[in-house]
């Protein structure tokens, strides 16, 4: 056997000294950036929970009301796509991050970075979409900021939103609450948003346009909680898709997860686009999909609540949590009945040669 100590490696050790696009892809490189740059610098107990939103009490004592607080930035191209726009995303994305902490979203802030030369008519459309999305989600946009950068230093418009919501129940909805035996539910088919964006960006034409699944989820989450279900954890399945969302929870909770491939729905047209691009739908972004972790005995009730709501008509039970000997491991029973590991990607999925 070769002595690995003498190894002369002609390739880099993966520690890039500049930011790559892949650092924003929701995969391993991004996890490393968070772990090596942000977490050590901002080190605090709330951040350590690694949830979609930070949850804190206003004052000491069990009776104190709890708030959820989150932020997100939106840098997508194209700005308008089948089923939505950057305006819808900027509101729904932040509303959904609050919902994933079990909060009822109340107020949003917004910051605009506009590029010199950006058409005001487009800006109006974006702002109108934000207004409509805020109305639909029952939130108000109450403060904001606008900056303009020189032509060539932006991509039309970048939007940041932050949001606060109130938690009106006693559940602690976070990865640490997940227990062995929990059932995992999803509220519909996957991969639609990412493919809608890719089809427009790459000029792929299908018989009919694939529309984004972009939708506010707070109302649906509110129904689950109002039903008295012991919701242990929620996660929206945006960047990195279903795979990244479930792996993050498995790792944060130190438990194992088993998924069932046959229970995970992918629409035919979306699957076709994935086949053309060489993408695995498990890793493609969604903007209106989330997973719910509840005790197994409540799974059927949770499923009924999800299916009764317009944002959850395609809901399904897709897997369960186990204690297993490999904390953080996610496996999947494949369509052929065998089992495989579901692993985090390095960065973004890249279209393949053949």
């Amino acid at each position, binding site marked *: *056997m*070769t002595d*690995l100590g*003498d*190894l*002369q*490696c*002609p*390739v*880099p*050790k*993966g520690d*890039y000294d*500049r*930011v*790559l*696009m*892949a650092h924003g892809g929701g995969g*391993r*490189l991004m996890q490393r950036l968070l772990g090596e740059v942000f977490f050590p610098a901002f080190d605090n107990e709330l951040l350590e929970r690694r949830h979609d939103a930070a949850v804190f009490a206003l004052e000491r004592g069990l009776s104190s009301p709890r708030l959820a607080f989150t932020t997100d930035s939106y840098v997508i191209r194209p700005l308008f796509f089948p089923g939505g726009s950057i305006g819808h995303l900027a509101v729904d994305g932040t509303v959904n991050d609050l919902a994933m902490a079990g909060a009822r979203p109340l107020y949003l802030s917004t910051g605009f970075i506009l590029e010199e030369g950006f058409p005001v008519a487009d800006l109006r459309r974006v702002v109108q979409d934000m207004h409509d999305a805020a109305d639909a989600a029952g939130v108000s946009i109450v403060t904001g900021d606008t900056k303009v950068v020189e032509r060539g230093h932006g991509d039309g418009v970048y939007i940041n939103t932050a949001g606060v919501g109130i938690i009106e129940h006693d559940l602690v909805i976070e990865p640490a609450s997940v227990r062995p035996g929990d059932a995992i539910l999803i509220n519909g088919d996957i991969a639609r948003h990412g493919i809608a964006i890719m089809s427009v960006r*790459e000029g792929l034409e299908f018989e009919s346009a694939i529309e984004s699944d972009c939708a506010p989820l707070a109302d649906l989450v509110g129904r689950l909680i109002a039903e008295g279900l012991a919701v242990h954890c929620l996660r929206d399945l945006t960047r990195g898709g279903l795979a990244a969302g479930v792996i993050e929870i498995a790792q944060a909770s130190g438990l194992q997860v088993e998924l069932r491939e*046959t229970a995970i729905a992918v629409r*035919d047209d979306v*699957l*076709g686009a994935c*086949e053309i*691009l060489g993408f695995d739908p498990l890793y493609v972004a969604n903007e209106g999909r989330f997973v719910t972790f509840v005790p197994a005995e409540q799974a059927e009730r949770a499923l009924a609540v999800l299916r009764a709501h317009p944002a959850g008509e395609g809901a399904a039970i897709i897997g369960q949590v186990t204690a297993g000997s*490999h904390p*953080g*491991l996610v496996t999947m029973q*494949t*369509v*052929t*009945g*065998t*089992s*495989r*590991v579901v*692993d985090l990607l*390095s*960065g973004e999925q*890249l*279209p*393949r*040669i*053949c």
Partner: protein
Amino acid sequence: MRFVTEYRDAAACRKLAEAIARLVTRPWTLMEVCGGQTHSIIKFGLDQLLPEQVTLVHGPGCPVCVTPLEMIEKSLELAARPDVTFCSFGDMLRVPGKSQDLLAVKAGGGDVRIVYSPLDAVAVAQEEPEREVVFFAVGFETTAPGNAMAVYQAKEMGLTNFSMLVSHVLVPPAVEALLSSPDCRVQGFLAAGHVCTVMGYGEYEPLAAKYGVPIVVTGFEPVDILQGVHACLKQLEEGRAEVENAYARSVRHEGNLPAQELIREVFEVVPRKWRGLGEIPRSGLSLREPYAALDAEKRFGLTETEIPEPEACLSGLVLQGLKRPPECPAFGQECTPEHPLGATMVSSEGACAAYYRYRHVGGEAPV
């Protein structure tokens, strides 16, 4: 989805697996040539459905994997030039050279663009006449017609700012190189369906006869692969060594004749170095003399420097089917998709990357 879902059907897979189990009376070793097939086998756990006596080893059919380091260095050199717009398929961007990859060149200011077709790169050259547009032409016979068409069209249009960095390889010479090695333990081959869609399968017939091995043209979905395995094992058990087409919905004996004609018009067969395997005679394609002006290596005067592979890396043995990825001591330790030591961990189609992605359970040997 038609033509996909029915070929991933669990009941059909089970039936084929049972038929294979009834058929097999002794140990056999088969090689699937194509990285796409390796990926399917590991992703869908098809090897777990087979009897223990059947061993699948993974072949050299991953174009990203076998592109030599020297060629990667050339791509990095070109991509870093301020006058060059470097266009490539997405999966070449993460392949490391001596000290960096195309993604890092891009982050450092290089104009590197992902395209879906070489014709997109031709369009970039038309739209941006002030830029030197270079397309990285990597692949087997599958991508050769598209790349040939791009060069052909660029010449017809009289484009003076388009060129191609060509690192094309051919499957049959690699199969012959494996078969002629005294170490070869492969008893039957699953040939790559896509390659045969373009080239047909006549060129495998002399190989099957000369080396006495069955070669079965095989598709990429679970049912396709199990059908290919079944056909190959049936021949072995019956003592036959023929070329057989188990992917008839896509492959004809003569292949796609206009595509072949275009390949011959633009490219000529040359010796080519394969990463992990070394130089194989008559195993690559290079632009013919009338298209020399579109050859990026000539246009930019690129020179060749030999770059050694790390010794710990067993990718050469993996590509020859002599080792399986988990048998490498560096697998999952020093060698991961983020820190690939060699060819087969680099690409998502590579055998080591497939095992890492679908079998690796952290810190331990894959299951």
